[in-house]
């Protein structure tokens, strides 16, 4: 089914090569690859932190880590996994595949896209530099005041406050970018209801991010001012209320957890139909369930604060709103099972991970519902039961979903297949290790083991299950090693995958892999959901699948596209030219963040950083998108 690629006459601007080409790239595919690699590196780092934590908790009163080291590591494990692993992996897939799935040649603002990546990298390095500059943040990933503002003379929580602020700016920029891309750059004929579900989920995630990050931005500025300029936002003695931070944080926090899971749900909604050879069951219902989750996501934040003393009315209200989030989630799960029902399932690794996602997310979702029961949540809150819940939805859910995405789309961005046998070993090892680690935590939590404790005494019945969890954690580590071996080996020696190895349904399978920089020679006209599938197959009278009668080899995909007026359809394709301004602006922003951490003498660095940022922004605002435009 290879699409014969007409002779390219696109004038590829002769871009720089080597490292400089990566620093100045504005191609959404290369930025996607950079996001993916950075996320994988942080995933390994976050994983090592988790192993250290598990070693310390393997036995009571252990001496592996001191309390101070443990606190830094569990805080950085949380921050790393949320802000530097799961969000960037979602960004990697969205950056790479959103434009292609919509039939576009790039995102709406290529240079803003580059800025988002470089600011994210700046934020990551800024936060990790804290390890050698006086200790990493140790206030837990939620950084509750007044603990976060108790020691203004240290810099640890300044790295927390400014690190998330800078990462937030990167996410707001990329959200605006994706929203503009989805609403203004779809292929002709592709209405919103003909978009792939992954595109829908990326759009909803962009809305969740762009409307929730400013709120935590205000909270973080307040924390930063309390710590460095003596303001009294959270100082109880002066009349400030520490609960204000919890409200502002969780107003962002809950939409954030949907930001972490929805892209994985989007990937599963692409993988399941492809490997069941059946359309997604109830496309519209899955999409509207996603939108419902987005709206409800803004109305439930205080279920993280049932024990904070908000009074019965608020607790009852948020318990009810939280309960009804289970309805749209249930719709999604039933529709996924509906998709596999009556299909012809090929159990390759992407399919295994997606099925693993559905199986594990059911457990995580149900334990989530038990949290919405406010009275029983007072026993579960801040215990290991909650740790089990969010690992079942974040690891069993998001990470399994993204692993499915990696196995599914690896052939597209490298041109080679990931090895199936090694893939299956990776899946089963991760499945086993995951359950061994996090299933016992349900029991530990209910047996009264609180969260974030660096050790526990003997005699409370925590020893056995903590040991099992540590074994599980090392099994996961082995499975991640198997995964990395698979990635490295297959990049060179994997079987050559054509443009459409899985007989896919969406537009990215209609272009060669790896795709050229301009994606489509001719932008396709889209007539239905899963349009590429309907060009290959049709249905006989009882709705059974029938291959489309073979049309002269390969012309199928080409003549379907707009011929673009009278010329022979290969008009000049101008791709935006590389630009170093985004990277420069990101460097300026990171330098300013370092400066702000070390005021008063830091003001010099802030000045230098601000000037660099202004230069970057000014050059960027005046520079034409494509150089020949002059």
């Amino acid at each position, binding site marked *: 089914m290879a699409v014969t690629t007409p002779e390219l006459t696109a004038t590829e601007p002769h871009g720089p090569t080597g490292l400089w080409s990566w620093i100045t790239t504005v191609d959404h595919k290369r930025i996607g690859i950079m996001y993916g690699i950075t996320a994988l590196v942080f995933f390994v780092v976050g994983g090592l932190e988790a192993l250290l934590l598990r070693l310390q908790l393997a036995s009571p009163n252990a001496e592996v880590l001191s309390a101070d080291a443990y606190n830094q590591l569990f805080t950085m494990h949380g921050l790393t996994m949320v802000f530097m692993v799961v969000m960037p992996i979602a960004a990697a897939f969205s950056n790479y595949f959103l434009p292609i799935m919509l039939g576009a040649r790039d995102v709406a603002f290529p240079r803003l896209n580059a800025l988002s990546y470089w600011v994210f990298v700046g934020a990551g390095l800024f936060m990790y530099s804290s390890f050698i500059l006086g200790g990493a943040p140790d206030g837990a990933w939620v950084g509750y005041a007044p603990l976060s503002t*108790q*020691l203004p*003379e240290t810099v640890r929580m300044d790295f927390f406050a400014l690190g998330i602020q800078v990462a937030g700016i990167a996410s707001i920029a990329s959200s605006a970018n994706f929203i503009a891309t989805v609403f203004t750059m779809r292929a002709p004929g592709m209405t919103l209801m003909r978009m792939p579900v992954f595109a829908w989920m990326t759009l909803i995630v962009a809305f969740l991010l762009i409307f929730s990050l400013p709120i935590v931005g205000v909270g973080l500025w307040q924390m930063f001012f309390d710590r460095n300029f003596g303001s009294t936002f959270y100082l109880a003695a002066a009349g400030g209320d520490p609960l204000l931070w919890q409200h502002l944080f969780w107003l962002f926090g809950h939409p954030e957890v949907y930001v972490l899971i929805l892209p994985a749900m989007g990937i599963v909604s692409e993988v399941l139909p492809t490997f069941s050879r059946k359309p997604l069951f109830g496309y519209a219902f899955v999409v509207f369930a996603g939108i419902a989750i987005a709206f409800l996501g803004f109305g439930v934040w205080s279920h993280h604060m049932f024990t*904070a003393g908000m009074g019965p009315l608020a607790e009852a209200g948020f318990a009810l709103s939280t309960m009804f989030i289970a309805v749209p989630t249930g719709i999604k*799960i039933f529709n996924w099972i509906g998709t596999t029902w009556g299909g012809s399932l090929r159990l390759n690794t992407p399919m295994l991970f997606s099925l693993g996602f559905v199986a594990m997310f059911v457990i995580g979702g149900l334990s989530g519902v038990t949290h919405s*029961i406010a009275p*029983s949540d007072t026993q579960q809150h801040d215990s290991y039961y909650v740790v089990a819940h969010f690992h079942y939805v974040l690891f069993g859910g998001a990470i399994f979903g993204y692993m499915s995405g990696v196995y599914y789309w690896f052939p597209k961005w490298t041109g080679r297949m990931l090895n199936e046998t090694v893939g299956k070993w990776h899946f089963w090892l991760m499945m086993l290790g995951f359950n061994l680690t996090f299933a016992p935590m349900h029991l530990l939590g209910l047996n009264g083991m609180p969260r974030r404790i660096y050790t526990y005494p003997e005699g409370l019945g925590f020893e056995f299950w903590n040991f099992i969890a540590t074994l599980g954690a090392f099994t996961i580590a082995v499975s991640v090693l198997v995964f990395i071996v698979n990635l490295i080996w297959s990049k060179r020696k994997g079987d050559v995958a054509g443009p459409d190895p899985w007989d896919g349904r969406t537009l990215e399978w209609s272009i060669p892999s790896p795709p050229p920089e301009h994606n489509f020679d001719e932008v396709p006209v889209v007539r239905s959901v899963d349009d590429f599938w309907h060009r290959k197959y049709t249905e006989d009278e009882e709705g059974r699948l029938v291959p489309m009668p073979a049309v002269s080899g390969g012309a199928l995909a080409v003549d379907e596209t707009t011929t673009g007026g009278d010329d022979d359809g290969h008009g000049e394709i101008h791709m935006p030219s590389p630009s170093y301004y985004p990277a420069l602006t990101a460097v300026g922003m990171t330098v300013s963040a370092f400066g702000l951490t070390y005021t008063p003498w830091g003001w010099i660095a802030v000045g230098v950083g601000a000037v660099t940022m202004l230069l970057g922004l000014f050059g960027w605002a005046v520079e034409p998108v494509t150089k020949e435009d002059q």
Partner: protein
Amino acid sequence: MVKRSQMMRRRLVLLFATLGLALASCSGSGDQSALDPKGPIARDIDNLWLLVFWISVVVFVLVEVALLYAIRKFRERPDEDFRPKQIHGNTRLEVLWTAIPAVILAVIAVPTVAGVFNVREIPEGPDVLEVEVIGHQWWFEFRYPAYTNAAGEPLTTASVLHIPEDVKVNLIMTSADVIHSFWVPALNGKRDLVPGNTSNLTLIADDPTPSDDPLPGQCAEYCWLAHADMRFKVDVDTQAEFDAWVAEQLEPVVVPTSGPELEGWETFQSVCTACHQATVQQPDGTVETIGVSLAPNLGHFWGRGVFAGAKYEITDDLMAQWLDNPSDLKPMDPDRNDIANGRVLGMPDFGLDGTQIDGLIALLKSWE
């Protein structure tokens, strides 16, 4: 080569073995478990939990079985050319699996809302025992405003909360530094102690606990270094035992006049009163409260049985180690203490010599 489906089946069995093993051993609940309540409120919460738990198990089994059945039945058989029917959806089914979960949740919602108001109800009336709980970095302070000693100070103790059986105890809770959370799973859910706010928690214990096996509790909100070692005990007494305990606690401790205790008393006055407090009876009979209450009250300290946030049993050699260098036994950061502004992050190492340590131990023992 083993047929593919055989291998697949063996792996599925392996998966469910581990899951089953995990769930099957629910029974092993220690005594800080939320699963064996020892008070009416904890029992109500437990009943609500069990209702929701069993509904979840049913839903879990149904959904997972449906998924596994779909995997087994509709797996692509290499031999026959099975071309699936292209079903796009089924609105009736969609309505069904929207309505059913909504109905189940509506059913659960009723006891939930009732439960919220029940758990949050603040008991009033003469028969209610009010106890002020103040969270400090890394120990709990308990004050009984109803009982005051000769010097007019309310009964103050630390790390061990004595309550009579079958009495509604209304804990009025706040924090002196950061947010903590008071959690004794056997009696009630946890409740945060927020500086600047007061919150309430009701404890009702069914029957008294043996004196050597009180109900364990722990701080459940991360409060920095020794969060794991900020524990407390709830000692449930019969009404008679409780009254005797109160009477004994209200007695001022006697200032020694001779022996190693006197040596201890000298050290106590010069070193310990910077943070600790005690109501003492001077040799001339006058009763006064000396010291500052930034750290646990040392009157009747030895009788509590546990110290350092209920992390250690009180024994001579542990007390000697503690007095020698407290940070060896518990992770603290005394260098960041700011006594003037009330910020206490640990007991510093005063470099006491042997005789001072023995004197203090003798003094505290004499104060029983």
